[in-house]
């Protein structure tokens, strides 16, 4: 039932909304933003092959379509697939001395780590990375949008004050918890906790939280379970809750954030250039324009990572949340996390 609302909001906006007329833009854009407009960019022409790890909400498709419409001389071929499968294919291609992908757009930083470690990536020019917020500047890949870890809670059962504001206090709160241990975003969060709090503290946390937790297959499922009241709080990326509430404003779920710990980690999807030099880099510039960033923010509730753009509505100022400062490429080190989760029996 709620799923229907969720889907409806995702489907409303079309390709045309990505690059609206300049008049419409001026009102939305923050005057002080350093973000480049699509009008300032050179037209793209030539052949490009993009490997696209599946997109959140299908809205990436609209962005790509709009870029193609704007650049009639650009011949963009897209291969879609699960992020891990495409990353493995890129590595296998490189081992065989073949390069098919000019660009790889991945939904999580682990895939980026895998391909970057194989030494297949072009360095991005400084003026491009300088457009991003200072903590999201990497030489080999460009984060496009971010997502923050949250504790969605059931508003009928709890008041905001009852939700712990420190992730390590969750097991002592006595609340019923919903989580998705097999889900990549959750595993990245546990990796962050392992890096910040240490292995032993993380193991204890997993074990104690797990004794009062219910498993779900994915984090949309977690948020829906919180809303139905199956559990009191959950662990999920922020946008599931915002999209659910956009479709159904009466939904009995709201967002809560921990402060400056793994529980409010900001992770990112990102793109890297594997070949075709300047054209691939210029394509990335299109994704960092204020038009695309604002579109993904307003339609998909993703966090723009270009400096000076507004957050999606429904998120508090990130300065008050103070997400931990962590190098996202370190989150690619999933192996110890999986071992840990298995050792304590939550995976």
């Amino acid at each position, binding site marked *: 039932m709620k799923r229907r609302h969720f889907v409806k909001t995702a489907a409303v906006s079309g390709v045309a909304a990505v690059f609206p007329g300049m008049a419409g833009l001026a009102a939305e854009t923050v005057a002080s933003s350093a973000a480049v407009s699509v009008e300032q960019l050179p037209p793209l022409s030539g052949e490009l092959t993009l490997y696209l790890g599946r997109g959140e909400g299908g809205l990436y498709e609209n962005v790509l379509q709009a870029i193609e419409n704007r650049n009639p001389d650009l011949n963009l071929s897209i291969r879609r697939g699960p992020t891990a499968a495409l990353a493995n294919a890129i590595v296998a291609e490189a081992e065989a001395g073949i390069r098919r992908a000019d660009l790889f757009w991945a939904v999580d930083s682990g895939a980026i780590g895998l391909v970057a470690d194989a030494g297949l990536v072009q360095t991005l020019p400084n003026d491009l990375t300088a457009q991003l917020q200072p903590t999201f500047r990497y030489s080999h890949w460009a984060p496009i949008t971010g997502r923050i870890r949250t504790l969605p809670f059931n508003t009928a059962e709890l008041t905001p004050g009852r939700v712990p504001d420190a992730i390590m206090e969750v097991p002592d709160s006595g609340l019923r918890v919903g989580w998705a241990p*097999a889900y990549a975003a959750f595993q990245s969060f546990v990796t962050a906790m392992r890096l910040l709090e240490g292995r032993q503290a993380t193991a204890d946390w997993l074990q104690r939280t797990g004794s009062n937790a219910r498993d779900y297959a994915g984090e949309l499922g977690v948020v829906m379970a919180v809303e139905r009241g199956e559990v009191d709080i959950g662990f999920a990326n922020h946008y599931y809750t915002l999209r659910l509430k956009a479709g159904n404003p009466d939904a009995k779920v709201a967002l809560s954030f921990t402060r400056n710990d793994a529980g409010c980690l900001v992770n990112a999807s990102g793109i890297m250039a594997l070949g075709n030099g300047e054209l691939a880099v210029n394509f990335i510039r299109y994704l960092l324009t204020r038009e695309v960033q604002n579109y993904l923010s307003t339609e998909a509730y993703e966090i723009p990572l270009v400096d000076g753009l507004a957050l999606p509505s429904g998120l508090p100022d990130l300065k008050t949340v103070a997400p931990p400062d962590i190098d996202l490429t370190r989150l690619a080190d999933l192996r110890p996390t999986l071992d840990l989760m298995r050792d304590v*029996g939550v995976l």
Partner: protein
Amino acid sequence: MTRGRQVFRFPLAYPLALGIALVAVLPVMVLIILAVDPATSLDSLNADLIINTLLLMVITVIGALGIGVPLALLTAYVQLPLGRLWLIMLAAPLAMPSYIGAFTLYAAFGSGGEIENITGIVTPSASGLFGAAVVMILYTYPFVLLTTRASLLSLDASLIHAARTLGLPLLQCLWRVALPRAITGMAAGGLLVALYTLSDFGTPAIMGLDTFTRVIYVEYNAFGLSQAAFLSLQLLTIVGLLLFLDSRITATPERPGRSLMLWPSPGQILCLILTVLPVIGLTLLLPLAIFTLWLLREGTGGFDVRYAWNSTYASLLAAFAAVLAALPVAHVASRGAFGRLLERVTYFGFGVPGIVMGTALVYVGLQLPALYQTLGLLVLAYVMRFLPLAVGSVRSTAEKLDSSLVKAAWVLGAGPGEVFRRITLPLSMRGIVAGAALVFLEGMRELPATLLLAPTGFETLSTYLWRVYEAGYFGRAAIPGLLLVLMSGLGLALMFSGEGRAEFATVVQKTDTKLAKK
């Protein structure tokens, strides 16, 4: 003519079959190479996973036999109005990706499900072992249906007529005289069901059942390709055991003859159709209805009918190539232990979870850089993945062939080529058509190899369905879902029209005319 005789000389089948079996086992070899030095050990795996996996497999096989065998009897022997349309509708669920079936069943049933939203009737929810088994049964029984039907149709009806003359009632005749002779067909179908169930990930995940494949997917998605490969190879120990058990089931050769035909009364026809309808309703109508419901709510967009054509011709090419490759393998399999071993080896790839197999196929495909990400390689990948489907059904009908007809042809002066063309081939045609149909249907729903190996930008119905499903645009699945059923139906109609040539009477007649001309 003389050249043809040379080509079909029997000893040639061995090197040919050896070559084909080696190609088919290449992806599994790649897995062995990828799996070296795994960091994961199995001691941390809990026993529940293994138990769930085996339980799901056993229940699914039993259920698929329970539905598939009666439907095979029905579609093989009973002359229904609209004839093959029933067969096509009953086989088509094999083209529907089972995760789509699982998702729509999950969405339709239970409290808050679509059935309750519309009718107000509360239905039990589909989840857990029960839900997963129901879905797996509904989307795998056509394996059993097609292989068993092919076996049943190649049986001579005279034994059944004799039993009936001696006073055995019809149902008992079918149970005691027909089915035991079709045991290889049932076993071949059951084996495919078991392997499919072992390697499927989507259905148990949606139903919330923890199985071995989930562990493999977690490893794969955590960029542990070698761990995923290692675990997949462990899964293959179960596959090996199944292959061994299946090889213990053998058939006695029989003389070919006219197959049984039953002409039911209008009342019986109505009863039969009423029992069949729930199967079609659950496998085809329910998913299409749910998608249509969402289509009406959300609208659609972005679909291109070329996707339907892409799916269909890639799958048709694969079906054709797979039966060609299956012929020598099935032939040597019915000639001795070595041939049997070659045949068994081709099955392993079918027990490997799709995404791991897809990556292994990327490594194989990269050995042919000129073909990498072309349609030719995609078809080759389908053949490597689905060869056992063709081999199984060709073998189960071919090994029942009595050699006396072949010997008679030799005595009459026919060379090996002519014997193959005029005796062996027509009499195995049932199995060939069934095998082609299975490969075609599996090709229509294949996902991981298509995503990774198709030419860039080559979208098929199944890749499009995956895309809209992942994105949550469920309404957009309605039209491709319907087209998937339609195109599969057309493909099947084309293939089953080839079955007509296998009628025993036609073979005899043609032979008579040719001999007369000589």
